[in-house]
């Protein structure tokens, strides 16, 4: 059995960057996601063919899911690209875990079970949310969310909310990482006890977890976006 590690193991080093197995698989996942969806949506016709119709159905289902959460079509259109990209990439990277042999073979490990991947996603997503919020609300209105001078209590609340933004980012990354890492460890242990038979029910469970975690991550980003871009109420 491989040594249990929180991060991916380095496959090779290029220009001083450690290309870990999870990093390489994350790149492969990104390429796959882009290739599949760019291929599916290549025609962009008003009256779609079967393939375009299928991909439009997938994207529209995701769009409607987020639209139900925001309750505002304009906001959904703004956050949809980010949330959908997170959903698709996380789902793809989570599903790699289901491939038999994950955790057993050195090169095969779900990118989501590497803290770098999940934290990177959380940082990018939260950074995007806050940049758009500043652009929409304006610097002053945005700052008022965290710097409050109404009373000492409100000032403290503002500081807590500012800290909350960082903890949100960190917890987003940790949640996905924790779930996938635990799942992978579980599968690894099951493979080591009784290969092929014992991991089967857990593979089903992990399939479910993979889907749920992709939804949870992208949904939280959508909710954070709605909350962050909402003007401060008095």
């Amino acid at each position: 059995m491989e040594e249990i590690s929180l991060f991916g193991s380095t496959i090779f080093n290029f220009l001083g960057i450690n290309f870990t197995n999870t990093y390489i698989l994350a790149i492969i996942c990104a390429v796959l996601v882009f290739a599949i969806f760019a291929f599916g949506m290549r025609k962009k016709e008003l009256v779609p063919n079967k393939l375009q119709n299928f991909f439009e159905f997938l994207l529209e289902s995701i769009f409607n899911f987020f639209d139900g959460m925001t309750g505002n079509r304009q906001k959904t259109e703004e956050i949809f690209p980010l949330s959908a990209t997170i959903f698709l990439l996380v789902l793809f990277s989570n599903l790699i875990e289901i491939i038999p042999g994950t955790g057993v073979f050195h090169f095969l490990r779900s990118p989501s079970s590497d803290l770098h991947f999940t934290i990177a996603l959380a940082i990018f997503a939260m950074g995007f949310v806050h940049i758009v919020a500043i652009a929409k609300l304006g610097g002053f209105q945005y700052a008022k969310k965290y710097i409050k001078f109404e009373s000492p209590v409100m000032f403290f609340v503002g500081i807590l909310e500012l800290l909350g933004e960082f903890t949100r980012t960190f917890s987003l990354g940790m949640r996905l990482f924790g779930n996938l890492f635990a799942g992978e460890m579980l599968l690894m242990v099951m493979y080591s006890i009784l290969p092929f038979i014992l991991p089967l029910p857990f593979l089903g469970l992990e399939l479910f977890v993979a889907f749920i975690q992709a939804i949870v991550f992208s949904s939280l980003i959508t909710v954070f976006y709605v909350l962050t871009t909402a003007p401060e109420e008095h």
Partner: protein
Amino acid sequence: MEGLEIDWKVLVGQIINFAILFFLLTYFVYKPFLALLKERREKIAEGIKKAQEADEKMLEIEKTKDASDIKNEENRKAIILKAEGEAKTRAGEILQSAEQEKINIIAKAQKDSEVLKEKEKENTKKEIIENAFSLAEKVLKENIDNEKSKKITAEFLNKLKI
């Protein structure tokens, strides 16, 4: 188990990887997809609007048609009534003129028959006179006796009866 030491280069690499995917998908997939959705919504809305307009126009046309049907029916009835009136007047005139002509014809026929009757009378008169003359001649020429004279007169009178 190793500690929680983040490799910043890998972290930045992961961010860049995700950012590239995000921008590529946004540019090549999401934007065209949202544009398609918008265009389709607009087309559907336009189609529904046009269908409603067509329905409204159809209703308007039907109303106009109904109104014109009623007007046409009224016109038709008026024309028929007028034609019937004119026909009755014309028939009356024709009948009157026919009656007048009949009276004229009858009057003319009566007049003609009277003229003819007069002529016949004249002719008969002439014939009687002529016959009277010829009888007198005969009587004088033959110098007949009284009995013969009576016989000749009787013959003459019989002739006249025929």
